[in-house]
């Protein structure tokens, strides 16, 4: 391969368009090949293995040819990644397995309120571009804690940065490995635990030898797979249903039909007026109160602008100017998926409403049983594994007339994207493509996160704090050892199937926002911020955020008794969701580390704010403490003021010069 000889990267970087053009063409040809094999009668299981195996081999190949022993290549891909390609890599880095597989399902269930995620996970890039990324690029950091240590003079701020980074990135990476296992289990029929460790290998081979350089070029390849896989099924569905292959335009009609079906359900007695009012697709604020809806948007946006695995992608561009335009490209590539997700939700809901609800329970289509046998579709409260199972479940419901009502039907959020090929009656090749896309999304995010964690441990803790004289070769070896250790720890955690892990992903945003955002923004925009101010501010913001998360979820009884927490309120009726007096009188009220099924878990809080928006408390506390303590301590030195000026101006060398050989 031409890329092999050009270890320096010159030829490869000059030919990026051609390399990825050929790659995309090859991927298309591969899809056609699989389609032909399917027509020839090759079993689906074999096709699934071919899809997943081939794509992982390609990522591994890129990972291996991008190996490097140079520090700047390992940490920041030599700062030579063009804005456009860095945008694609950031897109893959950003969009997780959950975004790919679960986002449309959440929109299906939550309707308008689910759009908080769509808004929050895109609008944050505005903050990245205007407040943070270009200045960090000018500074020339290898990691986010690197910048904190330089700006706030010492390892106190660095250590705080590493702690927050670990807290937000580790749960996130566990969730990605979990998603990898689920996808492999569902499509390849592998054992879940085996699938988790296979996924781990796929992740390590991409990142271990080449660090940021290898991760960058595999993420670009993964972005192409994931966006093609996301768009193709829904484009075909749109063309079939409405004659126009632009789902983002045609799902307006689907929404109009959903709304009229919702009204007809009430008229026919298939749903009560109250139940429908709480579930209507376009009606706002029936899952979150307005305050919670806007708080969630804010936390997700500010979290985006603080998550280290995202910010470090902008350390790799050739210049400050490129870093800024790269944020715009990133958002464009992310936007392509996020503005399609509501179309998936609408088409899927229309299908369910028009072909299932109000029909005889004996006439369910085949896809209901396919997903029902996995326990992902329920009818009358039981898994819809077969026609007999459905009949038995519904006859056990008192007064059931054998007609499917709205409240009889349940669907797992993952099914919406995964079942679209079947609903549209497409051949298996498309389902295999979706599996490959979901895997690409999960692997690419896991790579970025693992690298962020391992770099913080090897660069910030080992090199900067423990052994500043370590030779380059040893630093890179230590970094790889940490990468493997963290990866194995994350895979082990995922293999224990922690029930809460998916909800914890939303927590990561609040943790990053409360812990890092004030220090990053004020560090650039307010020269008066002092070392003590920053350290105390980070500690306070992070502490309040963690306190709220841990107490509301794991120690709710203590929160009610000692921290004046009250029950959250139902967004439609305004009534408390739990009867606090009864729950506090129960014998299990004061248990700690309670399970998610505990009557109080995640159901109490301050001012009716859900714990996924915990940064609503941590963020202002962090800013306030940083401001007050800074004013109480002596102003930063003249050198520090000049340093900040230099960070603000694009012209000139990066500020952190590093021995690279």
């Amino acid at each position: 391969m031409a890329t092999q000889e050009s270890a320096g990267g010159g030829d490869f970087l000059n030919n990026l368009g051609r390399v990825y053009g050929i790659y995309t063409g090859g991927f298309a040809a591969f899809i056609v090949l699989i389609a032909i094999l399917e027509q020839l009668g090759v079993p689906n299981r074999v096709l699934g293995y071919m899809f997943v195996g081939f794509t992982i081999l390609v990522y591994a190949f890129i990972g291996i040819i991008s190996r490097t022993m140079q520090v700047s290549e390992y940490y920041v891909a030599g700062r030579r990644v063009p804005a456009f390609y860095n945008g694609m890599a950031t897109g893959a880095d950003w969009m997780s397995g959950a975004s790919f597989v679960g986002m449309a399902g959440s929109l299906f269930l939550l309707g308008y309120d689910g759009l908080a995620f769509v808004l929050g996970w895109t609008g944050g890039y505005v903050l990245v571009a205007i407040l943070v990324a270009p200045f960090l690029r000018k500074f020339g950091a290898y990691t986010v804690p690197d910048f904190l240590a330089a700006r706030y003079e010492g390892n106190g701020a660095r250590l705080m940065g590493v702690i927050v980074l670990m807290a937000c990135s580790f749960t996130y990476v566990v969730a990605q490995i979990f998603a990898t296992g689920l996808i492999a289990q569902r499509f390849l029929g592998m054992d879940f635990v085996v699938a988790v460790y296979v996924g781990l290998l796929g992740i390590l081979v991409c990142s271990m030898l080449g660090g940021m350089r290898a991760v960058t070029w595999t993420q670009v390849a993964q972005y192409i797979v994931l966006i093609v896989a996301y768009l193709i099924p829904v484009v075909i569905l749109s063309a079939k249903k409405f004659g126009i292959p632009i789902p983002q335009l045609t799902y307006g009609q689907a929404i109009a039909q959903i709304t009229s079906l919702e009204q007809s359900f009430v008229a026919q007695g298939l749903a009560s007026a109250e139940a429908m009012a709480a579930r209507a697709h376009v009606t706002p604020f029936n899952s979150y109160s307005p305050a919670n809806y806007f708080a969630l948007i804010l936390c997700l946006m500010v979290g985006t602008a603080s998550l280290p695995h995202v910010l470090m992608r902008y350390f790799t561009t050739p210049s400050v100017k490129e870093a800024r335009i790269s944020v715009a490209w990133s958002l464009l590539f992310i936007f392509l998926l996020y503005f399609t997700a509501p179309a998936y939700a609408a088409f899927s809901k229309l299908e369910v409403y028009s072909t299932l609800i109000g029909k005889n329970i004996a006439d369910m289509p085949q896809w209901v049983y396919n997903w029902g046998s996995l326990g992902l579709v329920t009818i009358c409260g039981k898994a819809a594994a077969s026609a007999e199972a459905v009949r038995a479940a519904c006859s056990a419901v008192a007064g059931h007339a054998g007609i499917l009502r709205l409240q009889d039907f349940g669907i797992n959020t993952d099914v919406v994207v995964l079942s679209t090929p079947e609903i549209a009656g497409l051949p298996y090749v498309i389902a295999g493509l979706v599996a490959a896309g979901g895997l690409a999304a999960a692997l690419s995010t896991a790579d970025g996160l693992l690298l962020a964690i391992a770099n913080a441990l090897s660069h910030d803790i080992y090199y900067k704090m423990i052994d500043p004289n370590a030779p380059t070769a040893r630093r890179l070896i230590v970094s790889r050892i940490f990468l493997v250790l963290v990866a194995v720890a994350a895979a082990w955690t995922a293999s224990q199937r922690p029930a809460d892990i998916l909800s914890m992903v939303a927590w990561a945003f609040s943790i990053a926002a409360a812990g890092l955002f004030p220090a990053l923004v004020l560090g650039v925009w307010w020269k008066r911020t002092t070392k003590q101010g920053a350290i105390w501010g980070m500690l306070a913001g992070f502490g309040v955020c963690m306190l709220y998360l841990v107490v509301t979820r794991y120690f709710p009884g203590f929160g009610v008794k000692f921290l004046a927490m009250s029950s959250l309120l139902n967004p439609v009726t305004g009534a408390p969701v739990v009867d606090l007096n009864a729950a506090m009188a129960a014998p299990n009220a004061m248990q700690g580390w309670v399970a998610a099924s505990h009557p109080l878990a995640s159901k109490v809080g301050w001012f009716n704010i859900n714990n996924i928006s915990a940064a609503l408390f941590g963020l202002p506390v962090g800013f306030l403490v940083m401001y007050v303590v800074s004013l109480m301590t002596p102003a930063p030195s003249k050198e520090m003021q000049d340093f900040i000026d230099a960070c603000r101006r694009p012209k000139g060398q990066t500020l952190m010069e590093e021995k690279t050989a």
Partner: protein
Amino acid sequence: MPEQHDSYWAKTSSLMYVMLGLWFFFSFAVHMFVVPLNKIVILGFPLGFYMAAQGSLIAFVAMLFWFAKAQDRIDVEEGVAEEE
């Protein structure tokens, strides 16, 4: 040098505040009017729903490309752009 720098940072700051204002409008302000906006329906989309599902997203993307251009212009005018 110092006074030149001051005007650079003043221009950069005002661009930042303009962007922050637009960001606030498309992230929060417009969605506070979702209920009245939903009464307007275009191509099947209630407008309030559309703004959250697509409208604001399109605005974010356009804003960022415009911002990159505008900030580059400030860099060049103030003589602090990077050497190519």
